[in-house]
């Protein structure tokens, strides 16, 4: 439990650090929010008045404390562009992105496990070579391009999945998420396969696998019941790191498939210089990543008793 309290404390500190970083970016940019909103035609008096109303002419420390205090109350300020509360806008967009990311991870694992199993059954064999080819391709193919190719070869000719947009009914939403999720998953799976493959092969050379092997247990059985449970830990840690990549993947793919999530929103907001929204989105994603990696850390401890006793 002591380890848990320490981890929680670290996560909170890290999140506070994130707020500082986001705030620093905003200040260091030296941009004039009033000018950004009103445009170059506005008079200096109007710009000053707006800046005063937004509070950006106050001392920096006060601004930062206001920002953090607002955050604690769940208040991220108002959008420069639409005037609506940032938290409300983000709450409308987040479910789309969250479903997309979860579905992407599910699909990537569905790709990873069977592919890696076939590859490690016979290292250097045909299945291993094919999976390596997939790893190379998945690493270098840009996700936005893959998304477009999927639209071209699946969505348009078959009409099975929509080429873009997000309907209101749940089953339509699921269908709208399939192709984007596959796109993100193909970017995630290669590193998962590499990580799992090397951990799995290492486990196969260990004494606790040698022992049942000498008793005559078959390869597939050895792989799944003896070696696999001990190879999962690196994969779990990797998934935590990948949460951040998946977030970036989602940002790109949402734009390709016109999904109304925080990624598509982020690009629009960025082009409007709508800093409260951009910062709110960045913070939201950063918080989620910190929480996910803390959770993965806890999960790794549950999976491996050695880590528990080490603390």
């Amino acid at each position, binding site marked *: 439990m002591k380890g848990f309290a320490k981890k929680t404390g670290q996560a909170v500190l*890290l999140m506070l*650090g*994130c707020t500082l*970083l*986001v705030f620093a*970016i*905003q200040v260091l*940019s030296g*941009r004039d929010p009033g000018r950004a909103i009103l445009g170059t035609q506005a008079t200096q008096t109007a710009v000053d008045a707006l800046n005063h109303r937004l509070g950006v002419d106050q001392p920096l420390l006060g601004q930062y404390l206001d920002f953090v205090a607002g955050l604690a109350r769940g208040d991220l300020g108002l959008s420069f562009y639409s005037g609506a509360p940032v938290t409300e806008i983000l709450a409308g967009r987040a479910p789309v992105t969250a479903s997309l990311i979860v579905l992407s991870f599910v699909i990537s694992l569905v790709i990873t496990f069977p592919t890696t199993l076939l590859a490690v059954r016979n290292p250097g064999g045909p299945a291993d070579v094919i999976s390596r080819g997939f790893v*190379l*391709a998945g*690493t*270098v*193919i*840009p*996700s*936005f*391009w893959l998304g*477009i*190719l999927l*639209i*071209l070869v699946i969505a*348009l000719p078959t009409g099975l999945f929509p080429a873009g947009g997000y309907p209101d009914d749940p089953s339509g939403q699921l269908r709208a998420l399939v192709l984007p999720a596959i796109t993100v998953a193909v970017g995630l799976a290669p590193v998962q396969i590499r990580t799992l493959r090397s951990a799995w092969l290492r486990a196969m050379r260990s004494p606790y696998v040698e022992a049942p092997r000498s008793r005559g247990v078959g390869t597939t059985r050895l792989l799944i019941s003896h070696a696999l449970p001990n190879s999962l830990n690196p994969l779990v840690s990797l998934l935590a790191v990948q*949460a*951040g*990549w998946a*977030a*970036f993947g989602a*940002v*790109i793919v949402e*734009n*390709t498939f016109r999904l109304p999530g925080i990624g598509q929103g*982020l*690009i629009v*907001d*960025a*082009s409007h*210089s709508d*800093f409260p929204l*951009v*910062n709110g*989105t*960045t913070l939201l*994603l*950063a918080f989620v*990543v*910190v929480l996910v*990696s803390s959770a993965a850390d806890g999960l790794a401890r549950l999976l491996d008793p050695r880590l528990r006793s080490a603390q």
Partner: protein
Amino acid sequence: MIVGLFALLAVVGPVIAPMDPMGQDLAGRLAQPSASHLLGTDAFGRDVLSRVLVAARIDLPVCIAAALVSALVGLVLGAAGGYLGGVVDAFLMRLGDLVMAFPTYVLVIALIAVIGPGVPAILVSFALVGWVSYARLLREEIRRVRREDYITAAYLAGIGRPTVLVRHVLPNAIRPVLAYFVMDVMFAILTLAALSYLGLGIQPPSPEWGTMVAEGQTFLQTHWWLTAAPGAMIAGLGLGLLLVGESLERRLKA
């Protein structure tokens, strides 16, 4: 091999490009691939083949520059942390944790949103995000190398600390950094293309692969090659860099 080909392309691209990549021919818009335009023309009647070839001139140098800036910042900070240790080191490493806690490229987007798109913004934001990996890598290497006997020998010979660092520690610690650098250029290529695709990277009308994919997407149903050609270039260059990076890593281990 592939990388060499692309590097060559970046140098001679404009010479072998059959047409002016910026030259518009509004009468010949969206032409099918033909003998005069091997990959057809885009919405402004610009020759796609020429644009795809010349784009190597923008993507490759910008990405190498981006990786170089990250590497320089990271190496200086990593050397400082690894060598001085103590408070400096602890501070730099915590700062690194902080940057890494962010979904890296979301931070890049946030930075570009604030700085405004363009090459300087790309270099600055890539460096702000990318230095951490270099710093950590070099720091570990320095901590390993400095315990070696030849470093002690250098000290005993009466050589000053800065000289030992630059002349004796760095050369022995730099090899893994080199392998990572090639990988970093590859990631930079993919990221730059993605950012340009989103409209936050290289701005049109400059020929850039990500931008071209975005422009071609509008005409996907009728003119798929407008999108396919630049995407294939990104994947091809990425693959070349990936293979070089992997073979460098393997050689290090051997």
